[in-house]
């Protein structure tokens, strides 16, 4: 394996990281939206979201990705590998994030909400000023956990031809007839990223525990 090969894997890493970040940035607010639909118990929409979340949480990302990549062009929606990858990541992570947000919303103290109502805040204000700042804090460890899970499934994106870390490693392995070294380089890139997220999650949890103990 030459230096150029390693550079190619790092170039793939750039793609992997950007797709993950895009997936997270779009998936998180959509997850919150879905959670709000269920929390508000909107007729028709709430049960539909429940089914969507249950189904998406049970679907492997590979299967979802293949479904989107092959089936959408079939019904007349042209889709390149990168858009299919982003769509699959967003659908997947929004379902998981929805559950994290929802459990924070379910545990939100009702008296605070009623207090906000009694001082005359409108629904939007109540949500933005009272509910959101607190559920963000509560959801943070769960959301970071979902981020590390999302990054761990990104190698799948190579299946539809996204030139990410894994695709670069597979190609180099096929060219040099030595598949192990490029995969070890790929793992060496993934491990610190995931480890940083896992440590971040533990750190937030510890901080919240000590903050609670102090209060």
């Amino acid at each position, binding site marked *: 394996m030459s230096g150029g090969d390693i550079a190619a894997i790092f170039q793939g890493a750039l793609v992997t990281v950007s797709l993950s970040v895009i997936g997270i940035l779009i998936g998180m607010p959509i997850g919150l939206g879905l959670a709000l639909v269920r929390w508000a118990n909107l007729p028709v929409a709430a049960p539909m979201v429940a089914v969507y979340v249950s189904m998406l949480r*049970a679907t492997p990302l590979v*299967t979802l990705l293949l479904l989107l990549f092959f089936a959408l062009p079939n019904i007349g929606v042209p889709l390149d590998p990168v858009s299919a990858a982003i769509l699959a990541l967003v659908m997947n992570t929004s379902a998981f994030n929805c559950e994290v947000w929802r459990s924070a919303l379910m545990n939100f103290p009702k008296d605070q909400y009623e207090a906000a109502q009694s001082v005359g805040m409108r629904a939007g204000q109540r949500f933005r000023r009272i509910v959101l700042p607190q559920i963000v804090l509560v959801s943070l460890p769960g959301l970071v956990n979902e981020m590390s899970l999302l990054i761990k499934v990104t190698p799948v994106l190579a299946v539809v031809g996204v030139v990410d870390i894994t695709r670069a490693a597979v190609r180099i392995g096929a060219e040099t007839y030595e598949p192990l070294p490029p*995969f070890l380089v790929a793992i060496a890139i*993934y*491990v610190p990223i995931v480890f940083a997220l896992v440590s971040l999650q533990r750190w937030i949890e510890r901080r919240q525990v000590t903050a609670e103990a102090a209060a």
Partner: protein
Amino acid sequence: MIHDFGIVWSERALLLSGLANTAILSALSAVAALLLGFLLAPALMSKKPVVSWTARGFVDGMRCVPFLLFAYIVYYGFPTFGVRLDNWTTGLAALTIYNAAYMAEILRGAWVAQPREPIEAGIAFGFSGIRLFRRIILPPLLLSAGPVIGNQMIQIIKDSAFLTIIALPELTHAASSIQSRHYVPFAAFITAVFLYWGLCLVIEAGVSTIGRVADARR
């Protein structure tokens, strides 16, 4: 569209064998990973630093590696060590080793959270070793870790789909081959999605039964 599902229906034997492979593979590796987890969890809590650090390194390492890359390493790595296995066994080994780390961490967490009193009472009654573990420690441990173990089993089912890349004939692989032969992508993959969903709903139902048993015992 109905016609497409007709084609999938005509290939039901292939799809069902894929489903069976996914279910058997996941069940076997879940059981094996749980057993390995029971060996690893005490190692994580060991007072000997060499043992606990080695176990911790393995568990944290596995938790940071994407399963797909791990499967590639096992697939290409085993033969270089002179171990030649077919794809099915390789897939099973990869799933088992990988998830053993997660199971060990789950069991450790539940173990640490167990109340000390029943164990001390058990020791006072003369239980020790295997009997103490089987009669006193294990039952409440499994009941309290049940839901998380169930989640991990769903994760194992989803991880098994990655094994399609080493041409293991599981559910996603079956759907893929139906779609490539007949070009019915939507029908083929959505059927697979529903089958995965069904598998996961079965596990969730099992977990909630365990939860009810645990509540009844409390």
